[in-house]
């Protein structure tokens, strides 16, 4: 019977119910989208690293897992690596920032193709002229580019010569010497990708490289991929924590306001229930159930909204962000919204439970 009353109350004030649930939903979406983008973008980075087809990655001394280095390693390092037994291909890349978190990657297209199996061109083809740039499908979609279109970065206009399937190394590609020149790092590279003749030789070669190049960051590609995580991105975890904190406060305020006005509006009804013999605990229980219902409906709406944000991200900014759905976080986000909501319902609930029946019955 109490559940029926709760449902009828929520239906009766459907505008406030919808707005409250939507506010809780936005809070849940905010958390899940942030987490989904964090995981998705990092997973995408890891996937693109694996997509190169290398077995080992060598990064400059002192570089962090996800830093955008320019080109601080000498290209001669490649000759050293190539003569190591079991190494079949060693290719270098140079990365140059082009604004924001975006970068262009310089590759030796022949070596890169041998290592990765080559780009899968969705349209166009390899570099033909000095102003040619290859972009991946996501970058092309985000910037509305087609083969032959012009795009501008690094104070220069480039012609899109090819659009490739995403998932290999980067989103924008130029010839290696061009990036070295643009970044004033001629003869230097950012990373070295190494392919071996047999995976079984990986431990031996890895150990040898670490011994020969003790200052460099040397990983197997699998190890490197696993290190690209939320835990290894400086500041990301505290940032997620801050967003969760803000969400709890928002949920608290929304439900507090909603329940506070609900208690005021329903003063007379509370008096009626008390005259029928409802205990303060029952009155509190009704508001708590309403709050839980709002939080659950809001959370479900919030979870569904993350599919919408994922679609919007893939539609409008796939070159910058990738969002994945993280079901493991659904109960966490729901619990967070419940915590904020129940905290918000405490004072109005207490006020309702303490309401004087006679005053409540004479409330206009």
């Amino acid at each position, binding site marked *: 019977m109490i559940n*029926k*009353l709760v449902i009828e109350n929520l239906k009766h004030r459907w505008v406030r119910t919808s707005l409250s649930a939507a506010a809780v939903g936005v809070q849940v979406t905010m958390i899940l989208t942030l987490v989904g983008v964090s995981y998705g973008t990092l997973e995408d980075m890891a996937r693109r690293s694996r997509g190169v087809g290398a077995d080992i990655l060598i990064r400059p001394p002192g570089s962090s897992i996800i830093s955008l280095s320019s080109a601080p390693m000498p290209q001669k390092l490649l000759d050293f690596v190539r003569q190591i037994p079991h190494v079949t291909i060693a290719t270098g890349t140079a990365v140059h920032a082009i604004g924001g978190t975006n970068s262009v990657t310089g590759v030796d297209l022949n070596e890169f193709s041998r290592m990765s199996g080559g780009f899968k061109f969705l349209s166009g083809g390899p570099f033909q002229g000095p102003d040619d740039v290859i972009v991946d499908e996501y970058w092309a979609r985000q910037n509305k580019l087609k083969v032959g279109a012009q795009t501008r970065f690094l104070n220069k206009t480039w012609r899109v010569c090819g659009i490739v399937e995403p998932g290999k190394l980067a989103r924008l590609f130029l010839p290696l010497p061009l990036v070295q020149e643009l970044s004033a790092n001629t003869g230097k590279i950012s990373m070295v990708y190494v392919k071996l003749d047999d995976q079984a030789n990986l431990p031996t070669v890895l150990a040898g490289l670490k011994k020969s190049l003790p200052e460099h960051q040397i990983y197997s590609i699998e190890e490197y991929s696993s290190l690209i995580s939320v835990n290894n991105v400086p500041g990301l975890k505290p940032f997620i924590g801050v967003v969760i904190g803000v969400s709890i406060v928002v949920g608290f305020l929304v439900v507090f306001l909603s329940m506070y006005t609900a208690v005021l509006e329903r003063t007379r009804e509370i008096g009626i229930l008390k005259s029928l013999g409802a205990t303060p605990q029952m009155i509190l229980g009704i508001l708590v159930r309403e709050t839980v219902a709002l939080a659950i409906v809001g959370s479900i709406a919030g979870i569904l909204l993350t599919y919408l944000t994922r679609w919007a991200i893939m539609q409008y900014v796939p070159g910058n962000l990738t969002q994945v759905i993280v079901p493991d976080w659904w109960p966490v986000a729901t619990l967070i919204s419940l915590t904020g909501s129940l905290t918000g319902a405490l004072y109005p609930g207490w006020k309702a439970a303490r309401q004087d029946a006679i005053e409540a019955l004479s409330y206009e």
Partner: protein
Amino acid sequence: MSDPAMLIQVKKLVKKYRMGDVEVSALRGVDLNVQKGEFIAIVGPSGSGKSTLFYILGGLSSASSGTVLIDGRDLTQMSDSERTAIRRELVGFVFQRYNLLPTLSATDNIAMAQYLAGKKHETDGWFKQTLDLLGIGHRLGHKPRSLSGGEQQRVAIARAIVNHPALLLADEPTGNLDSENSEIVLKLLRDLNERLGQTILMITHNPEAAAYAHRIVHMRDGRIVEHP
């Protein structure tokens, strides 16, 4: 000492309020006995203390001093939670403004009273007989806003008596009704009293309404008086 024939025994009942620095005496030593099965009307002008007496008898308010025995149980010695239990078990209320829960249908309003009293929702037997008596059987699925004032008051009466309370308290039950509906409601109260033996204490300022009762008690200035 409790008299088993008496449902209500009120002795030297005093109720004082504090309004700012001023102490107001709403009841100044009320003595009142009501027999089981009696239909009594309490009449008096505004401020005479009849509503205060109503709230104390219904366990909605506490007394400052004196004793109030309902079915042998002294309300003045009870805690808030014990008086809440009295409202569930011994008393049914009918108010001037009907006081139905607006979000629930008529039948759910009645079922809510049963639920709070820990009883199962009856749909036949005595319950059906009561609904027939009240003439609202066909309107049970409607919410209060779809019912006329007279219908709402009859639903409120059904809700008040559904748990077989020892005492039915009615506060100006016809105050918001036209004369035709007032007559229906008052006849219903009298029928409930005569056919089912329901003890009723009705507060009213309307002499015509009071005439339906067996006995009329007059109040003025917080006291029961012999003559109006």
